[in-house]
């Protein structure tokens, strides 16, 4: 399943790396639910959010800068940072 990382910039603590925002990847696996770090960071009672491992092609992330377009980078992204992506 293809997903796009939200291209949003929030003040405060987030665990979604800047270099992946707005990028399209494929869900590699779901790893369960975990405390939302954006609430946990302020010691608020956190919600439990699904965490997904997403695989991105280097060409998608870096464009022509990629050393090899077929290499990949994989990262754990919380579901609330992902939206479905349809290539059409």
């Amino acid at each position, binding site marked *: 399943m293809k997903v796009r990382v939200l291209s949003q910039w929030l003040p405060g603590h987030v*665990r*979604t*790396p800047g*270099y992946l925002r707005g990028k399209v990847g494929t869900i590699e696996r779901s*790893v*369960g639910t*975990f405390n939302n*770090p954006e609430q946990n960071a302020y010691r608020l009672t956190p919600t439990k959010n699904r*965490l997904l*491992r997403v*695989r991105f092609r280097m060409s998608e*992330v*870096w464009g022509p*800068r990629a*050393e*090899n377009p*077929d*290499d*990949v*980078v*994989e*990262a*754990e*992204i*919380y579901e609330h940072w992902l939206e479905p992506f349809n290539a059409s």
Partner: protein
Amino acid sequence: MPHDHHEPLSPSGHPYRADDDRDLTYWQVMEIAVRELLIEKGHVSATQIQDQINTMDARSPANGARLVAKAWTDPAFKYALIEDAGQATREMGFDIGPMHLIALENTEEVHNVIVCTLCSCYPRNLLGLPPDWYKSRAYRSRAVVEPRKVLSEFGLEFNQKIQIRVHDSTADMRYIILPYQPADSVGLSEAELANWVTRDSMIGVGLPRPPA
């Protein structure tokens, strides 16, 4: 009275950081103050702190090397490790606390490498504390954009047909790499094989090699 709190010699042969016998720094004063206040207020005990230090000191890459060697010699264990590395590790007797562990297998077609671009996440409850370079800005900035160049600085060159997979430990998972077993190590015992597995090979910036 320098050095009265730890062994004078480093177990690994690396120099200790400037510590007991240098001028007290502001941050060292803060560490002592936070520790003593937390103890006085009953939040922690001195014993707990020392026990935790001992626990971390006992963790080392040798733990991971034992896992890898077992996976190389026992296909059922390798399968279990890739299915659920945390459970397989605990069943082997390692206390990894609440850590969520994923094992990634290197093959003839795929080479995995681990980084934490956001901070310094590392499978510390199995392998001990990360090396200094792992926490450096240089490694954390570059590993996701030019992994092949970074790997070449570690002495590893891969042809373009091998896919490099960089794993950014962005959240709650921790990773260990199951290196590809060198052909000339096939047939050795599990105990012998463990000596081939280096810390760097379990991070993905090294390969297994014969013991020196």
